[in-house]
């Protein structure tokens, strides 16, 4: 779904300040692709059946540069084409935040797409080093099973996390993220109007 231009304009006006701050932080922070993390990666797996053929769903999923169907995304800035470890996208969120993601895998034959979130914002998602692996498989009646797996670490980088940044909080948040992402993909692929954004 393409957003109405007025939304973007409003978003831009409202959040220029916030973006400015983010840019300033980006300048001063070392550009660490993979932030510090502990010893115990966590895993969440979710899946859904989409009433569309695998080729059609793959066309949406694999179009890394145009993922404006993702929940809460106002627009996408992308670079590097669709080459793994080169392609990057900046998800400009409707709330003004920015999420940067690197394409880590694009296997058309097996219909698998991998991505890694660069830079962590535990206020947005109380987890770090989020990596996703999306796999499409043919399902009955010409439909598609979409499996979305996530690897991440809790928000707190070392042992003894505060309660708001522990494993359970991270798992709950990533579970909700995957559910929302899958619902949005399903709506997009099935040509339905997506549910209102939170």
């Amino acid at each position, binding site marked *: 779904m393409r957003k109405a231009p007025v939304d973007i304009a409003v978003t831009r006006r409202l959040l220029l300040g916030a973006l400015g701050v983010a840019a300033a932080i980006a300048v001063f922070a070392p550009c660490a692709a993979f932030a510090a993390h502990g*010893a115990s990666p966590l*895993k969440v797996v979710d899946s859904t059946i989409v009433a569309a053929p695998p080729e059609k769903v793959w066309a949406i999923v694999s179009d890394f540069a145009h993922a404006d169907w993702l929940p809460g995304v106002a627009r996408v800035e992308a670079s590097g084409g669709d080459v793994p470890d080169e392609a990057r996208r900046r998800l400009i969120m409707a709330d003004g935040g920015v999420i940067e993601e690197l394409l*880590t895998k694009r296997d058309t034959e097996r219909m698998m797409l991998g991505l*890694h979130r660069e830079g962590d914002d535990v206020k947005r998602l109380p987890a770090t080093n989020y990596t996703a692996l999306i796999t499409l498989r043919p399902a009955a009646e010409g439909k598609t099973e979409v499996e979305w*797996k996530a690897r991440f670490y809790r928000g707190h980088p070392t042992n003894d996390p505060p309660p708001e940044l522990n494993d359970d909080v991270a798992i709950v948040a990533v579970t909700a993220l995957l559910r929302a992402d899958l619902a949005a993909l399903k709506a997009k692929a099935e040509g339905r109007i997506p549910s209102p954004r939170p």
Partner: protein
Amino acid sequence: MVRINASAPHPNPLPASGERGRARVLFAALLLLLSSAASASEAFVTAQGADALSIVDLSKMETVATLPIGGKPAGIAVSRDGARAFVTSPEGKFLTVVDAATRRIEKRIPIEGGPLGVAASPDGKRVYVADLYGRRLVEIDLASGAQRSVGVGAMASGVAVAPDARTIVVADRDDNALSLIDAASFSRVATVAVGKHPFGVTIDAAGARAYSANVESDDVSVIDLRARKVVATLKCGSRPYTVALARGRVFVANQHGDSVSVFDAESLAPLETLKVGEYPEGLAASADGARVYVANWFSNELWALDARTLKIVGKAETGDGPRAFGAFIRDAE
């Protein structure tokens, strides 16, 4: 499927006289099964999500036992004689000592911080554990239980002991370096700058070279241990995690590449890139070098590779989130 557990209690007394012949045959068959179970090589795979150790029979490529460990087990070291397995639990802050033959937990040793990488001395008397958060390597004397520490770099991860037992190598992940520890004096004698974020570290059978998998620079540093310097850098797949050596070849597990890169150990020429399961992590070779095993974290599998033909020769399902970070193969006697 018949499952023989070597730690099972003594079999029931044989049935009375009339069935003696059949019982004798059954008993003989049981003995045979027991002996074959004891002689099969096994993989001790830490399944971190499952909070357990998955023990895989490598002749059948099948998980034959699951041992609850707790504390999110990650690191593993099977002693050279196969008698014990040492498992680190970074969240639980302890090391579990497993009697590998009976698959029983012998004891649990508390270790402060975040115990992760682990290696045993060749004689199996000492265990070395990297504390991820404490900038230290911990030595445990198993007989006395005594612990001592030596300072290393930031986020100490992989640990390897040279075959002559004199040198210990630690990957100081966030320092982009390896620490070389003199085992006798238990002091840090050198640091060697390597690629970005070294994680797994492996030493060859001659004790001449160490190899570190550098996660963030997508390469492997080859270190001459005598000269204490990097002599080569091997470009591999995306996010290399661990290194194994077999049949004169260097194997590297690439997490994001879902692959294993293979190099010739002498010429260091790249030979092949093998597609494996999803998110490969732990990698280890059998003692005879015939096979290399790789734990695939996302797809919960252990895959077997033929080190000579470079073909996939088997797959086994494991518990959730296999890490198998360390020397996880227990070779048949």
